[in-house]
């Protein structure tokens, strides 16, 4: 799951931490958790659509 973690971090860091401060705020933490779950859901939707298409 290495690449998935890297991708999530890349996308969610961009979305949730546009201006990195001296520590992670609670809003940023919440955003990261939310974004991660959303990204994994997107991964599932894409994966499913891709399987349906190529089979």
């Amino acid at each position: 799951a290495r690449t998935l973690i890297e991708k999530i971090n890349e996308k969610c860091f961009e979305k949730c931490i546009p201006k990195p401060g001296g520590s992670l705020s609670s809003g940023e933490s919440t955003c990261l958790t939310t974004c991660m779950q959303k990204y994994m859901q997107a991964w599932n939707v894409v994966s499913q659509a891709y399987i349906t298409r190529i089979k």
Partner: protein
Amino acid sequence: QQKAKFQANVHSLTDLCWTKCITGKISSTTIDRSEESCLVNCVNRFIDSQKAIVGQLDVMGGRT
């Protein structure tokens, strides 16, 4: 090895379609209906596009 190729494709499609379809702020942990249909369309149009390009290359006699 085919599984690795499949996974790599899903990773790059998710990356591309996430950027195209999830454009607002992150407020909900779930993908809403319009985001979901955008993701599905994105995958299908991307594959259509690839097929169109490969088909056209064949017509052109496989140049390059």
